[in-house]
Structures are given as C-alpha cells and as structure tokens.
C-alpha cells in the first residue's frame, strides 16, 4: 500500500525534474526523524540501562563500578520502595476511578440536546489545558486551611487537606480528577454519540428499562473507547510527579516518581535510580499490556 503511493510520483513534478527518486524522497523524510529518535530517546534509554548495573553517581568523578544485579536486588527488597509502590497504586486507583466516574457521568449528561452544549463542553475542557504546576499551585491556595475557599464553602473551618497525612493523597487525587475528568468525558462523549440512536429505539420497543439499556447497550458499545481513556489515564497517573510534588511533601504522598526524583537528583544515586526507572518502566509496560489485551477482548465482542 505505502510503496504503491510512493511509486506514483507525478512524472511532471519538480521532484521528478530534479531526478529525485521515490526512495530518495522517502529517506529525506524519514532519516531526520529516525536520527532524532536515536539521539534523544534510544541512546539515553540504553545508556541508563547500562548505568543501572553500576554504582555510578553523577555527583562525583569516581568511576562507575559494575555491580551486576545488585541495584535491582536492593531496590526490590527495600520495604520503603514497596511503600512507594503501594501509595502509587492507591493513588492510581482513586484518581482513575474518580476520573472515569465523573468524566463518564458528565458525558452522559452532555449527550443529549441541551442549550449551550458547545459552550459548556468547552468550559469543562479548560482544566485539561492548564499546566500541572500551575494547577498544583492554585489548588494549594484553594485547600489552604486559613483562607482557602474550599473549607469556606464546605464549612470545614480549619480542616487540613494537605497537612493531614491520611487526607493528602486524596486531596491530590481530587485535583487530578478535576483536571483530567474532562479528558475521559471527551472520549466518552465521542463513544456515546457513536451509538446509533435507532438501537435505543429498538431497546425501547423491546421494553428494556433505562438501566437495562444502559448496561446492555450503552456501556458495551462505549467500552472500547472508555478503555482507551483508562489506559491513557492510568499511565499518566502512574508517573504523576508535578501535582504531588507541588501540593504536598508528606511521606504518605511519596509516589514512585517523587521517590525516583529524590533518588536521582537529591541523593545522586544515579546507578540505583536508573535501575529503579527500569523497574517502573517494566511495570508500566506490563499494566498497559494487560489493558490492551482486555481492550482487544472488549472490541472482539
């Protein structure tokens, strides 16, 4: 298919006049991209893989010693690291579940003829377009126990959202939900509006209740696109850094990305943190794979 397109070079075109073959033109487009990818992605990836087997520290001039799998062994047996992982898992679960519930709910509300639908949709999408750090900063103000507007409206007096070790993770998740539920909403809306209207009419004729129609028709037909939204959001939530870093510095909110940052750039354990990064990478790939398998199963239905 692709080669067919490329051989169809118009013989009267300027490229043809200059004697450029199809192959030359193709290479002209592809080589810079490949070069860019290798220099900025592949090479650092492999380089850090090499570091992950050493005790290298970027802060000293000491030569790197090969330590084999020692870094990996240390990390995987470190209880603190596991606590980072379980905090992250909890965060991902709360945040993604919240985004899906809120986002899909909003999409259901918007998927009908309502006045000013376009305007409402646009307004709802705004949080998504802001920078994470900015969002973190102004939510910090909103959460403030002394003058924060949230406590004022909820009548919570001096409730400590971010200083309370049990509450802080939820507080961060709430911000993430506020910011990214619109993303889920957008994809869900696309999915919902792709469900043919006549199927709902058929269901009505078949005397299905609203709830039955939702679970047997709407949800199965929107599931594939909802899965895609969930994959994206899970991956993003898994590597959340800025929001949590700006909002709170509690041990109970130390997500893996923050732990990794500290290890690499505060403790300068470059080799160790490279190994850590690889463990995280493998996990993300594994989780994504599970999702994609499930997605394919949903799509096959």
């Amino acid at each position, binding site marked *: 298919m692709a080669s067919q397109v490329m051989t169809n070079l118009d013989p009267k075109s300027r490229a043809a006049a200059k004697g450029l073959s199809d192959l030359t033109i193709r290479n002209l487009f592809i080589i810079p991209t490949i070069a860019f990818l290798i220099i900025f992605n592949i090479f650092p990836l492999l380089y850090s893989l090499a570091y992950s087997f050493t005790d290298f520290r970027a802060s000293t001039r000491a030569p790197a010693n090969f330590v084999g799998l020692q870094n990996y062994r240390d990390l995987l047996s470190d209880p603190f690291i596991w606590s980072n992982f379980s905090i992250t898992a909890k965060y991902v679960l709360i945040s993604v579940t919240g985004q899906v519930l809120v986002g899909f709910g909003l999409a259901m509300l918007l998927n009908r003829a309502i006045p000013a639908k376009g305007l409402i949709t646009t307004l709802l999408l705004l949080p998504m377009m802001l920078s994470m750090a900015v969002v973190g900063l102004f939510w910090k103000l909103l959460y403030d126990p002394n003058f924060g507007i949230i406590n004022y409206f909820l009548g919570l007096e001096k409730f400590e959202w971010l200083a309370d070790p049990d509450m802080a993770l939820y507080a961060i998740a709430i911000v993430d939900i506020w910011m990214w539920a619109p993303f889920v909403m957008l994809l869900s809306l696309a999915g919902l509006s792709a469900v*043919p209207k*006549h*199927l709902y*009419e*058929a*269901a*009505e*004729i*078949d*005397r*299905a*209740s609203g709830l*039955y129609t939702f679970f*047997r*028709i709407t949800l*199965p*037909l929107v599931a594939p696109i909802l899965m895609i939204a969930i994959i994206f959001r899970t991956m993003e939530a898994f590597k959340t850094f800025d929001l949590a870093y700006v909002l709170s510095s509690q041990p109970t909110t130390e997500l893996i990305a923050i732990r990794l940052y500290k290890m690499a750039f505060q403790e300068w354990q470059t080799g160790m943190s490279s190994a850590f990064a690889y463990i995280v990478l493998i996990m993300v790939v594994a989780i994504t794979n599970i999702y994609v398998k499930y997605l394919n199963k949903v799509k096959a*239905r």
Partner: protein
Amino acid sequence: MAQIDIQNVQKFFGQHQVLKDLNLTIEDGEFVVMLGQSGGGKTTALRAIAGLETVTSGKILINGEEVQNRKAADRDIAFVFQSFSLYPHMTVRENIAFPLRAVRMNAADRDRAVKAVAETLQIAQHLDRKPSALSGGDMQRVAIGRALVRRPQALLMDEPLGVLDAKLREQMRAEIKRLHIARGSTSVYVTHDQIEAMSLADRIVILHDGVLQQVGAPDQVYLQPTNLFVAKFVGSPVMNVSDVRIDGNNVRLNGAEAGFRFPDETLSTVRHAEAGLTLGVRPEAVLLAHHQGEGYVPVVTTNIEPLGSHDIVDVQLGGTVLRSRTASGFVSGEGQQVWVRLDPAQAHFFDKATGLNMRGAN
C-alpha cells in the same frame, strides 16, 4: 393480538405537517400495508402507532384503550426497522432473547422461545454468530425473530425488505406472508413497492403528502382507484392518462383527430363534469388489432418493450402516447400501422380540478 384504531391524528414537525387528519382502523389479525411515495408520512404514521413519535393531536387506540400518551414500552408493540437495528455486540441468540431478558423471563422459557422462533425463521444454525457475520436476508430474519419472540399486540414493519436484492425480497415476502398466516398477528407493513403491497396486503392504505388517499383490498385499489394519484401510483406500467373532450358518445384524447365511442352507461356518470376531464386506462385496457374494426382508431407503433410473458407497445395518438399490454410478439416492430380501441368497462374518468374518480367507484 389487537385492533388498532387511529382517530384524527395530526403530526407536525415544527411548521411542517406530516400527517393530516389520519383515520384508520386496523382489525385484529389483519395485514395492512401502507403504500406511498417517499416523504409521504408512512414511517411517521408507523412510528406514531409504535410510540416512537408523539402525535400533535388525535387519538390512537389499541384494543379500545387510548395509548397516544403512553411510551413505546407500554404499548407492547413490535417494530422491525428498515435498517434492522440489530444489537451489534450481541449474538443472534442474544438479540432474539433481548426482549425476553428485558422483562426478566426465566432462562428455560426464554431458550425455548428463542429456539422456536429461530427454527420458524430458519436461522437456528446462526444463533451463535454476530449480526455482522450474517447476510442481509438472515439479518432481516433475526430482526423479525426479535419482533415475534414475545408475541406482541401488533407487528409493525418499516420497509423491512428495502435493502435486500430483488430475488431475496421476493423470497422474504413469501416468508412474511406465510408467517402472518401461521401466527395471525395484526400487522402493519410500510413499503413504497406496490408489488410488495399487492402481494402481502389484506388491505392497502395509500398515503400521499400525509393525506390518506384510499383504503381497500389490493384488487379494489387497482380496479377502482378513488383518485388520479392512486390510479397513477398503483399498477405497472403506469396507467395511461390524458385530458379528454366528450362530444356525445365520442371521447377524444388531447390533440387527437379521431375519438373513441363510449356507451351511454359509461358516460352517464361523468357527463356533468365536462368542464375538465382526465381519462385513465391501464395498459391492459388499451386493445390493439391488426385490422380495421368497429370503434378502432388507426395509429402507428413507436416503441416495443418485450417482457417475455407479454409486450408493452407504445402507440402515438394525437399528443398522447398510449401504452398497451399485448401478447408477446403481437406487434413485430416500430413504425407499424395498427388499430387501437379502449375498453370502456376499464376506463376511468377523473375530475381535472379535484382528481376524483367521476365514476364514483368508491
């Protein structure tokens, strides 16, 4: 099974009136076909009966109960959509079982009902397939199966064979008829194909521009059309139509020198509308002969359509082309001299202003 009564139903979409004072009673067990051109309001009428569309005014009664304000689910009516509307993510079995599961019928009864319907419709071997893996005819069978599985009050079908090819249509038509005879369900069937209408209907309802034109048995609609629209819409090839002048017993077609002699009893009912009359004769009432005879007018053939079982021969008379249905091979070619006569018993006279059939057949 049920009787459906439609009383003074009007339907507006904004300013646009789609149904104009519709009155119709569909008897229990009857097969009624709604026939009409595109945009005539057939689908709207059917959807109004089903409850998929509200009516602006008027009543719809099922078994004597007013239902016009009830939701579709509460009317217990089945509907076969033109686009089939099968649930794409469910197997054939799940599709047919859907109306039963939706009302929580127990699994054993459900399976039995699904199996029975699948066997009647000859789709038992496809039960575990997805709709996308079926042919058009089988999809239609599934759609009908889903409608029949729960024994509804009435079965409404909106051009169910519209997307099938000609051969399959004919086959499915016969099957729908057979099913109807077997189950005796009150059925309303929408189509714009008159052959489908003729072959299926107990009664045909002709809708045009939201106005009911005629209700009657197929032969009645064909032989005694109430107005020019029905006359031209039903029958293939189309009825020959020409403005005429009547002098005494002589009926002269628009622009023709010679006229046809009609007996008194034919003309007695039409004389009083001499202001403007339109004559309609079906091709089988245009009689051709090779020799001059009593009441025949000489003409020249202009075109011949050989259709195997018979031919359609065009002859030019004045400003009018008359199409005649003849035995095949009756006329050998174009440009031949033949003689033509009209059968007075099968001639219709329509008032030019109102389009009404002057012989008051109906």
